[in-house]
Protein backbone atom coordinates (compact mmCIF):
# COMPACT_ATOMS: atom_id res chain seq x y z
CA UNK A 1 0.00 0.00 0.00
CA UNK A 2 1.27 3.46 -0.86
CA UNK A 3 2.25 5.66 2.03
CA UNK A 4 -0.03 8.49 2.98
CA UNK A 5 0.77 11.81 1.41
CA UNK A 6 -0.57 14.48 3.72
CA UNK A 7 0.06 17.29 1.24
CA UNK A 8 -2.46 15.58 -1.04
CA UNK A 9 -5.00 15.62 1.77
CA UNK A 10 -4.29 19.10 3.09
CA UNK A 11 -4.27 20.97 -0.22
CA UNK A 12 -7.87 20.13 -1.21
CA UNK A 13 -9.04 20.63 2.37
CA UNK A 14 -7.53 24.11 2.59
CA UNK A 15 -8.83 25.04 -0.84
CA UNK A 16 -12.33 23.89 0.10
CA UNK A 17 -12.30 25.90 3.32
CA UNK A 18 -11.13 28.99 1.42
CA UNK A 19 -13.78 28.55 -1.24
CA UNK A 20 -16.59 27.95 1.25
CA UNK A 21 -15.55 30.85 3.51
CA UNK A 22 -15.26 33.35 0.68
CA UNK A 23 -18.50 32.16 -0.91
CA UNK A 24 -20.39 32.41 2.38
CA UNK A 25 -19.13 35.93 3.12
CA UNK A 26 -19.96 37.14 -0.39
CA UNK A 27 -23.38 35.50 -0.23
CA UNK A 28 -24.20 37.20 3.08
CA UNK A 29 -23.37 40.53 1.46
CA UNK A 30 -25.22 39.85 -1.80
CA UNK A 31 -28.01 37.73 -0.34
CA UNK A 32 -29.11 40.04 2.48
CA UNK A 33 -30.53 42.83 0.29
CA UNK A 34 -32.18 40.22 -1.93
CA UNK A 35 -33.70 38.51 1.11
CA UNK A 36 -34.85 41.85 2.52
CA UNK A 37 -36.50 42.81 -0.74
CA UNK A 38 -38.16 39.39 -1.02
CA UNK A 39 -39.43 39.68 2.56
CA UNK A 40 -40.69 43.26 2.38
CA UNK A 41 -41.62 43.95 -1.22
CA UNK A 42 -45.24 43.99 -2.30
CA UNK A 43 -44.31 43.48 -5.93
CA UNK A 44 -46.38 40.83 -7.63
CA UNK A 45 -43.45 39.36 -9.49
CA UNK A 46 -41.27 38.94 -6.45
CA UNK A 47 -42.03 35.23 -6.27
CA UNK A 48 -40.67 34.91 -9.79
CA UNK A 49 -37.41 36.39 -8.50
CA UNK A 50 -37.57 34.05 -5.50
CA UNK A 51 -38.03 31.13 -7.87
CA UNK A 52 -34.96 32.12 -9.90
CA UNK A 53 -32.87 32.36 -6.74
CA UNK A 54 -34.15 28.97 -5.57
CA UNK A 55 -33.65 27.17 -8.89
CA UNK A 56 -30.21 25.69 -8.08
CA UNK A 57 -31.95 23.57 -5.42
CA UNK A 58 -33.82 21.73 -8.15
CA UNK A 59 -31.43 21.93 -11.10
CA UNK A 60 -28.93 19.08 -11.45
CA UNK A 61 -25.40 20.39 -10.84
CA UNK A 62 -24.51 19.13 -14.31
CA UNK A 63 -26.97 21.63 -15.81
CA UNK A 64 -25.39 24.45 -13.85
CA UNK A 65 -21.92 23.13 -14.72
CA UNK A 66 -22.73 22.90 -18.41
CA UNK A 67 -24.06 26.44 -18.68
CA UNK A 68 -21.32 27.81 -16.46
CA UNK A 69 -18.71 26.18 -18.69
CA UNK A 70 -20.20 28.02 -21.66
CA UNK A 71 -20.77 31.30 -19.77
CA UNK A 72 -17.27 31.35 -18.27
CA UNK A 73 -15.65 30.38 -21.57
CA UNK A 74 -14.10 32.51 -24.33
CA UNK A 75 -17.43 32.98 -26.10
CA UNK A 76 -19.31 33.89 -22.92
CA UNK A 77 -19.35 36.91 -20.58
CA UNK A 78 -16.86 35.15 -18.31
CA UNK A 79 -14.32 35.12 -21.12
CA UNK A 80 -14.90 38.84 -21.72
CA UNK A 81 -14.40 39.50 -18.01
CA UNK A 82 -11.25 37.37 -17.94
CA UNK A 83 -10.01 39.40 -20.93
CA UNK A 84 -9.67 42.40 -18.59
CA UNK A 85 -6.61 40.78 -17.07
CA UNK A 86 -5.48 39.04 -20.21
CA UNK A 87 -6.95 35.58 -19.59
CA UNK A 88 -9.26 33.76 -22.00
CA UNK A 89 -11.64 32.00 -19.69
CA UNK A 90 -12.82 31.98 -16.10
CA UNK A 91 -13.14 28.20 -16.14
CA UNK A 92 -10.31 26.35 -14.37
CA UNK A 93 -9.77 29.27 -11.98
CA UNK A 94 -10.50 29.76 -8.31
CA UNK A 95 -12.51 32.87 -9.25
CA UNK A 96 -14.61 30.75 -11.60
CA UNK A 97 -15.34 28.32 -8.76
CA UNK A 98 -16.36 31.18 -6.48
CA UNK A 99 -18.73 32.44 -9.16
CA UNK A 100 -20.21 28.98 -9.64
CA UNK A 101 -20.53 28.47 -5.88
CA UNK A 102 -22.32 31.80 -5.46
CA UNK A 103 -25.06 30.66 -7.82
CA UNK A 104 -25.08 27.11 -6.48
CA UNK A 105 -25.36 28.06 -2.80
CA UNK A 106 -27.38 31.27 -3.07
CA UNK A 107 -30.78 29.74 -2.17
CA UNK A 108 -29.36 28.24 1.01
CA UNK A 109 -28.35 31.70 2.21
CA UNK A 110 -31.22 33.82 0.89
CA UNK A 111 -34.07 31.60 2.07
CA UNK A 112 -33.26 31.47 5.83
CA UNK A 113 -32.59 35.24 5.92
CA UNK A 114 -35.82 35.94 4.07
CA UNK A 115 -37.74 33.74 6.51
CA UNK A 116 -36.16 35.50 9.46
CA UNK A 117 -37.00 38.95 8.06
CA UNK A 118 -40.58 37.87 7.41
CA UNK A 119 -40.91 36.49 10.93
CA UNK A 120 -40.16 39.93 12.37
CA UNK A 121 -43.41 41.26 10.97
CA UNK A 122 -44.35 44.94 10.47
CA UNK A 123 -44.78 45.91 14.11
CA UNK A 124 -41.13 46.34 15.32
CA UNK A 125 -40.30 48.25 12.15
CA UNK A 126 -43.29 50.55 12.61
CA UNK A 127 -42.32 51.17 16.22
CA UNK A 128 -38.81 52.07 15.11
CA UNK A 129 -40.26 54.44 12.51
CA UNK A 130 -42.43 56.21 15.11
CA UNK A 131 -39.24 56.68 17.15
CA UNK A 132 -37.93 58.49 14.08
CA UNK A 133 -35.34 55.89 13.19
CA UNK A 134 -34.29 56.14 9.55
CA UNK A 135 -34.99 53.05 7.39
CA UNK A 136 -31.24 52.41 7.28
CA UNK A 137 -30.99 52.66 11.07
CA UNK A 138 -34.09 50.49 11.50
CA UNK A 139 -32.60 47.85 9.26
CA UNK A 140 -29.32 47.63 11.19
CA UNK A 141 -30.62 48.24 14.73
CA UNK A 142 -33.89 46.32 14.59
CA UNK A 143 -34.20 43.97 11.62
CA UNK A 144 -30.70 42.51 11.55
CA UNK A 145 -30.44 41.77 15.30
CA UNK A 146 -33.90 40.19 15.33
CA UNK A 147 -33.01 38.10 12.28
CA UNK A 148 -29.71 36.94 13.72
CA UNK A 149 -30.66 33.24 13.96
CA UNK A 150 -31.62 33.41 10.28
CA UNK A 151 -28.20 34.80 9.44
CA UNK A 152 -26.51 32.07 11.43
CA UNK A 153 -28.54 29.36 9.72
CA UNK A 154 -27.79 30.96 6.36
CA UNK A 155 -24.05 31.07 7.03
CA UNK A 156 -23.92 27.47 8.23
CA UNK A 157 -26.00 26.17 5.32
CA UNK A 158 -24.20 28.26 2.70
CA UNK A 159 -20.83 27.11 3.97
CA UNK A 160 -21.81 23.45 4.24
CA UNK A 161 -23.49 23.38 0.84
CA UNK A 162 -20.41 24.89 -0.81
CA UNK A 163 -18.18 22.34 0.90
CA UNK A 164 -20.39 19.61 -0.56
CA UNK A 165 -20.31 20.98 -4.10
CA UNK A 166 -19.16 18.37 -6.60
CA UNK A 167 -20.84 18.29 -10.00
CA UNK A 168 -20.37 21.95 -10.78
CA UNK A 169 -16.70 21.91 -9.77
CA UNK A 170 -16.09 18.73 -11.73
CA UNK A 171 -17.45 20.36 -14.86
CA UNK A 172 -15.76 23.76 -14.66
CA UNK A 173 -12.74 23.11 -12.44
CA UNK A 174 -10.23 21.17 -14.52
CA UNK A 175 -8.96 19.38 -11.39
CA UNK A 176 -5.95 21.66 -10.79
CA UNK A 177 -4.22 20.91 -7.47
CA UNK A 178 -4.27 23.94 -5.19
CA UNK A 179 -6.62 25.88 -7.45
CA UNK A 180 -9.71 23.88 -8.31
CA UNK A 181 -9.16 20.42 -6.86
CA UNK A 182 -11.54 20.68 -3.94
CA UNK A 183 -12.36 18.08 -1.31
CA UNK A 184 -15.21 16.34 -3.12
CA UNK A 185 -13.18 16.01 -6.33
CA UNK A 186 -10.15 14.76 -4.40
CA UNK A 187 -12.31 12.08 -2.76
CA UNK A 188 -13.63 11.08 -6.17
CA UNK A 189 -10.05 10.79 -7.49
CA UNK A 190 -8.90 8.75 -4.50
CA UNK A 191 -11.79 6.32 -4.94
CA UNK A 192 -11.15 6.05 -8.65
CA UNK A 193 -7.47 5.25 -8.14
CA UNK A 194 -8.33 2.82 -5.34
CA UNK A 195 -6.49 4.85 -2.73
CA UNK A 196 -9.21 4.12 -0.27
CA UNK A 197 -7.15 4.96 2.80
CA UNK A 198 -6.96 8.61 1.74
CA UNK A 199 -10.57 8.49 0.57
CA UNK A 200 -11.62 7.22 4.00
CA UNK A 201 -9.81 10.01 5.83
CA UNK A 202 -11.45 12.75 3.77
CA UNK A 203 -14.84 11.07 3.42
CA UNK A 204 -14.96 10.14 7.09
CA UNK A 205 -14.10 13.73 7.90
CA UNK A 206 -17.05 14.85 5.79
CA UNK A 207 -19.38 12.53 7.70
CA UNK A 208 -18.28 14.07 11.00
CA UNK A 209 -18.48 17.57 9.51
CA UNK A 210 -22.06 16.99 8.28
CA UNK A 211 -23.09 15.73 11.71
CA UNK A 212 -21.62 18.81 13.38
CA UNK A 213 -23.35 21.11 10.87
CA UNK A 214 -26.76 19.59 11.40
CA UNK A 215 -26.27 19.50 15.16
CA UNK A 216 -25.31 23.18 15.08
CA UNK A 217 -28.46 23.95 13.10
CA UNK A 218 -30.63 22.16 15.61
CA UNK A 219 -28.98 23.94 18.53
CA UNK A 220 -29.43 27.32 16.83
CA UNK A 221 -33.08 26.49 16.23
CA UNK A 222 -33.72 25.45 19.84
CA UNK A 223 -31.99 28.48 21.23
CA UNK A 224 -34.05 30.72 18.96
CA UNK A 225 -37.23 29.03 20.13
CA UNK A 226 -36.25 29.65 23.78
CA UNK A 227 -35.46 33.31 23.10
CA UNK A 228 -38.83 33.67 21.41
CA UNK A 229 -40.80 32.49 24.44
Amino acid at each position, binding site marked *: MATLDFAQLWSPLRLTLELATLTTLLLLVVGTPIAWWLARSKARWKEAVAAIVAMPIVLPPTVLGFYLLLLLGPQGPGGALAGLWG*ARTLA*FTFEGLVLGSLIYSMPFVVQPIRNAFEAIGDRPLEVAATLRASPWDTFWSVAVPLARPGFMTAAVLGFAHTVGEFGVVLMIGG*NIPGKTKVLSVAIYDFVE*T*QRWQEAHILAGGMVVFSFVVILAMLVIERRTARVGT
Partner: protein
Amino acid sequence: MSAPPIARIFLAALLLLAGLAPARAADVKVAVAANFTDPVKEIGQGFEKSTGHKLILSFGATGQFYAQITQGAPFEVLISADQATPAKAIAEGYAVAGTAFTYAVGKLALFSKTAGAVAGETTLKEAKFAKLSIANPATAPYGAAAIETMKALGVYEALAPKIVQGNNIAQAFQFVDTGNAEVGFVALSQIAFVEGGSRWIVPANLHKPIAQDVVLLKAGANNETAKAFLQYLKSPDARRVIEKFGYGID
Protein backbone atom coordinates in the same frame (compact mmCIF):
# COMPACT_ATOMS: atom_id res chain seq x y z
CA MET B 1 -18.88 -10.07 -42.62
CA SER B 2 -21.18 -11.33 -39.89
CA ALA B 3 -20.98 -14.60 -38.04
CA PRO B 4 -21.61 -17.65 -40.27
CA PRO B 5 -25.21 -18.93 -40.15
CA ILE B 6 -24.14 -22.15 -38.42
CA ALA B 7 -22.73 -20.11 -35.55
CA ARG B 8 -25.93 -18.17 -35.28
CA ILE B 9 -27.99 -21.34 -35.26
CA PHE B 10 -25.70 -22.79 -32.63
CA LEU B 11 -26.08 -19.66 -30.55
CA ALA B 12 -29.85 -19.73 -30.94
CA ALA B 13 -29.90 -23.38 -29.86
CA LEU B 14 -27.83 -22.52 -26.82
CA LEU B 15 -30.23 -19.77 -25.90
CA LEU B 16 -33.17 -22.16 -26.32
CA LEU B 17 -31.46 -24.68 -24.06
CA ALA B 18 -31.02 -21.90 -21.56
CA GLY B 19 -34.75 -21.25 -21.84
CA LEU B 20 -35.18 -21.18 -18.10
CA ALA B 21 -32.62 -18.43 -17.72
CA PRO B 22 -34.05 -14.96 -17.13
CA ALA B 23 -35.30 -13.22 -20.26
CA ARG B 24 -32.69 -10.52 -19.88
CA ALA B 25 -29.89 -13.01 -20.52
CA ALA B 26 -29.81 -11.71 -24.08
CA ASP B 27 -28.71 -8.34 -22.75
CA VAL B 28 -25.09 -7.55 -22.07
CA LYS B 29 -24.15 -4.83 -19.64
CA VAL B 30 -20.94 -3.30 -20.89
CA ALA B 31 -18.77 -0.74 -19.13
CA VAL B 32 -16.97 1.27 -21.80
CA ALA B 33 -13.96 3.55 -21.41
CA ALA B 34 -14.93 7.03 -22.56
CA ASN B 35 -12.51 7.15 -25.50
CA PHE B 36 -14.25 4.16 -27.12
CA THR B 37 -17.73 5.71 -26.91
CA ASP B 38 -18.36 6.35 -30.59
CA PRO B 39 -16.81 3.18 -32.00
CA VAL B 40 -18.64 0.90 -29.57
CA LYS B 41 -21.96 2.44 -30.50
CA GLU B 42 -21.34 1.59 -34.13
CA ILE B 43 -19.96 -1.85 -33.32
CA GLY B 44 -22.93 -2.41 -31.04
CA GLN B 45 -25.35 -1.68 -33.86
CA GLY B 46 -23.64 -4.31 -36.00
CA PHE B 47 -23.71 -6.79 -33.14
CA GLU B 48 -27.36 -6.15 -32.38
CA LYS B 49 -28.30 -6.42 -36.04
CA SER B 50 -26.44 -9.67 -36.63
CA THR B 51 -27.39 -11.41 -33.38
CA GLY B 52 -30.61 -9.77 -32.20
CA HIS B 53 -29.11 -9.24 -28.77
CA LYS B 54 -28.95 -5.97 -26.97
CA LEU B 55 -26.01 -4.10 -25.48
CA ILE B 56 -26.54 -1.89 -22.48
CA LEU B 57 -23.64 0.53 -22.61
CA SER B 58 -22.29 2.63 -19.75
CA PHE B 59 -19.58 5.19 -20.47
CA GLY B 60 -17.04 6.50 -18.01
CA ALA B 61 -13.50 6.39 -16.76
CA THR B 62 -11.86 2.98 -16.48
CA GLY B 63 -10.75 3.57 -12.90
CA GLN B 64 -14.21 4.65 -11.85
CA PHE B 65 -15.71 1.51 -13.35
CA TYR B 66 -13.14 -0.64 -11.61
CA ALA B 67 -13.93 0.87 -8.23
CA GLN B 68 -17.61 0.11 -8.88
CA ILE B 69 -16.91 -3.43 -10.08
CA THR B 70 -15.05 -4.23 -6.85
CA GLN B 71 -18.27 -3.24 -5.08
CA GLY B 72 -20.50 -5.54 -7.08
CA ALA B 73 -21.50 -3.41 -10.07
CA PRO B 74 -23.49 -5.58 -12.50
CA PHE B 75 -21.25 -5.02 -15.54
CA GLU B 76 -20.52 -8.17 -17.54
CA VAL B 77 -17.88 -6.85 -19.91
CA LEU B 78 -15.26 -4.18 -19.26
CA ILE B 79 -13.95 -2.38 -22.33
CA SER B 80 -10.97 -0.80 -20.66
CA ALA B 81 -8.76 2.05 -21.82
CA ASP B 82 -5.68 0.17 -20.61
CA GLN B 83 -4.22 -3.27 -20.09
CA ALA B 84 -3.53 -2.89 -16.40
CA THR B 85 -7.13 -2.76 -15.22
CA PRO B 86 -8.34 -5.98 -16.91
CA ALA B 87 -5.18 -7.73 -15.68
CA LYS B 88 -5.86 -6.48 -12.18
CA ALA B 89 -9.51 -7.52 -12.41
CA ILE B 90 -8.42 -11.06 -13.22
CA ALA B 91 -5.77 -11.09 -10.50
CA GLU B 92 -8.23 -9.88 -7.88
CA GLY B 93 -10.96 -12.27 -8.95
CA TYR B 94 -13.41 -9.86 -10.57
CA ALA B 95 -12.88 -11.12 -14.13
CA VAL B 96 -12.57 -14.44 -15.89
CA ALA B 97 -8.98 -15.56 -16.50
CA GLY B 98 -7.99 -16.05 -20.13
CA THR B 99 -10.66 -13.76 -21.56
CA ALA B 100 -8.67 -10.53 -21.82
CA PHE B 101 -7.35 -9.42 -25.18
CA THR B 102 -6.25 -6.20 -26.86
CA TYR B 103 -9.08 -4.91 -29.03
CA ALA B 104 -7.45 -1.62 -30.01
CA VAL B 105 -4.30 0.42 -29.70
CA GLY B 106 -5.14 4.02 -28.99
CA LYS B 107 -3.55 6.97 -30.73
CA LEU B 108 -2.96 10.25 -28.97
CA ALA B 109 -3.53 13.54 -30.75
CA LEU B 110 -2.95 17.17 -29.92
CA PHE B 111 -6.01 19.07 -31.02
CA SER B 112 -7.25 22.63 -31.31
CA LYS B 113 -10.51 24.05 -32.63
CA THR B 114 -8.49 26.81 -34.30
CA ALA B 115 -7.02 26.09 -37.71
CA GLY B 116 -3.24 26.37 -37.66
CA ALA B 117 -2.99 26.45 -33.87
CA VAL B 118 -1.49 22.98 -33.75
CA ALA B 119 1.44 22.41 -36.08
CA GLY B 120 3.37 19.60 -34.41
CA GLU B 121 5.71 19.32 -31.49
CA THR B 122 6.76 22.94 -32.04
CA THR B 123 3.30 23.89 -30.76
CA LEU B 124 4.22 22.37 -27.41
CA LYS B 125 7.68 23.93 -27.40
CA GLU B 126 6.48 27.42 -28.27
CA ALA B 127 3.52 27.06 -25.90
CA LYS B 128 1.52 30.01 -27.22
CA PHE B 129 -1.58 28.95 -25.34
CA ALA B 130 -2.95 29.56 -21.85
CA LYS B 131 -4.55 26.21 -21.13
CA LEU B 132 -3.68 22.69 -22.22
CA SER B 133 -6.34 20.10 -21.51
CA ILE B 134 -5.48 16.47 -20.73
CA ALA B 135 -7.30 13.55 -19.16
CA ASN B 136 -6.53 12.81 -15.51
CA PRO B 137 -3.18 10.97 -15.78
CA ALA B 138 -3.82 9.07 -12.55
CA THR B 139 -6.87 7.35 -13.98
CA ALA B 140 -6.83 7.70 -17.76
CA PRO B 141 -4.15 6.10 -19.98
CA TYR B 142 -4.47 8.92 -22.52
CA GLY B 143 -3.67 11.36 -19.72
CA ALA B 144 -0.63 9.33 -18.71
CA ALA B 145 0.47 9.14 -22.36
CA ALA B 146 0.11 12.92 -22.65
CA ILE B 147 2.42 13.41 -19.67
CA GLU B 148 4.92 10.91 -21.11
CA THR B 149 4.87 12.76 -24.43
CA MET B 150 5.56 16.12 -22.81
CA LYS B 151 8.37 14.62 -20.76
CA ALA B 152 9.87 12.95 -23.83
CA LEU B 153 9.91 16.32 -25.57
CA GLY B 154 11.38 18.02 -22.51
CA VAL B 155 8.50 20.48 -22.20
CA TYR B 156 6.62 19.06 -19.23
CA GLU B 157 8.10 21.39 -16.60
CA ALA B 158 7.31 24.43 -18.73
CA LEU B 159 3.77 23.31 -19.56
CA ALA B 160 2.72 21.98 -16.15
CA PRO B 161 1.20 25.30 -14.96
CA LYS B 162 -1.00 25.38 -18.08
CA ILE B 163 -2.45 21.91 -17.68
CA VAL B 164 -6.09 21.43 -16.83
CA GLN B 165 -7.47 17.95 -16.27
CA GLY B 166 -10.68 16.42 -17.45
CA ASN B 167 -12.04 13.64 -15.30
CA ASN B 168 -11.73 11.40 -18.35
CA ILE B 169 -10.76 11.78 -21.98
CA ALA B 170 -14.31 12.80 -22.94
CA GLN B 171 -14.10 15.78 -20.62
CA ALA B 172 -10.59 16.63 -21.80
CA PHE B 173 -12.05 16.94 -25.30
CA GLN B 174 -15.04 18.90 -24.02
CA PHE B 175 -12.74 21.55 -22.52
CA VAL B 176 -11.16 22.03 -25.95
CA ASP B 177 -14.49 21.81 -27.76
CA THR B 178 -16.01 24.61 -25.65
CA GLY B 179 -12.91 26.73 -26.25
CA ASN B 180 -12.05 26.91 -22.56
CA ALA B 181 -8.70 25.32 -23.36
CA GLU B 182 -7.07 26.28 -26.67
CA VAL B 183 -5.34 22.95 -27.11
CA GLY B 184 -5.66 19.52 -25.61
CA PHE B 185 -4.39 15.98 -25.77
CA VAL B 186 -7.32 13.85 -26.90
CA ALA B 187 -7.87 10.42 -28.33
CA LEU B 188 -7.63 10.39 -32.11
CA SER B 189 -10.91 8.44 -32.08
CA GLN B 190 -12.68 11.47 -30.65
CA ILE B 191 -11.70 13.73 -33.51
CA ALA B 192 -11.64 11.19 -36.31
CA PHE B 193 -14.85 12.68 -37.68
CA VAL B 194 -14.41 16.24 -36.47
CA GLU B 195 -13.79 18.57 -39.37
CA GLY B 196 -11.65 21.67 -39.22
CA GLY B 197 -9.42 22.80 -36.39
CA SER B 198 -5.86 21.57 -36.35
CA ARG B 199 -4.33 18.38 -35.08
CA TRP B 200 -1.08 16.57 -34.62
CA ILE B 201 -1.06 12.80 -34.25
CA VAL B 202 1.55 12.16 -31.59
CA PRO B 203 4.23 9.72 -32.86
CA ALA B 204 3.91 6.40 -31.05
CA ASN B 205 7.55 6.48 -29.92
CA LEU B 206 6.91 9.43 -27.59
CA HIS B 207 4.81 7.42 -25.15
CA LYS B 208 4.14 3.87 -24.10
CA PRO B 209 1.61 2.17 -26.39
CA ILE B 210 -1.98 2.73 -25.31
CA ALA B 211 -3.00 -0.90 -25.65
CA GLN B 212 -6.64 -1.24 -24.67
CA ASP B 213 -7.93 -4.55 -23.38
CA VAL B 214 -11.38 -5.95 -22.95
CA VAL B 215 -12.25 -8.59 -20.39
CA LEU B 216 -15.21 -10.76 -19.39
CA LEU B 217 -16.22 -9.94 -15.83
CA LYS B 218 -17.42 -12.49 -13.29
CA ALA B 219 -20.99 -11.21 -13.54
CA GLY B 220 -20.98 -12.21 -17.22
CA ALA B 221 -19.13 -15.51 -16.82
CA ASN B 222 -22.29 -17.49 -17.64
CA ASN B 223 -23.80 -15.05 -20.11
CA GLU B 224 -23.35 -16.52 -23.60
CA THR B 225 -24.31 -13.21 -25.16
CA ALA B 226 -21.46 -11.50 -23.33
CA LYS B 227 -19.05 -14.12 -24.69
CA ALA B 228 -20.51 -13.70 -28.15
CA PHE B 229 -19.94 -9.96 -27.93
CA LEU B 230 -16.27 -10.51 -27.03
CA GLN B 231 -15.96 -12.73 -30.10
CA TYR B 232 -17.70 -10.12 -32.20
CA LEU B 233 -15.10 -7.52 -31.13
CA LYS B 234 -12.52 -9.66 -32.96
CA SER B 235 -14.61 -9.95 -36.11
CA PRO B 236 -13.60 -8.19 -39.33
CA ASP B 237 -16.74 -6.04 -39.07
CA ALA B 238 -15.77 -4.75 -35.66
CA ARG B 239 -12.12 -4.30 -36.61
CA ARG B 240 -13.09 -2.23 -39.62
CA VAL B 241 -14.99 0.15 -37.36
CA ILE B 242 -12.15 0.26 -34.83
CA GLU B 243 -9.64 1.19 -37.52
CA LYS B 244 -11.99 3.69 -39.08
CA PHE B 245 -11.99 5.60 -35.79
CA GLY B 246 -8.23 5.90 -35.86
CA TYR B 247 -7.17 3.06 -33.61
CA GLY B 248 -4.49 0.57 -34.39
CA ILE B 249 -5.19 -3.15 -34.20
CA ASP B 250 -2.89 -5.32 -32.15
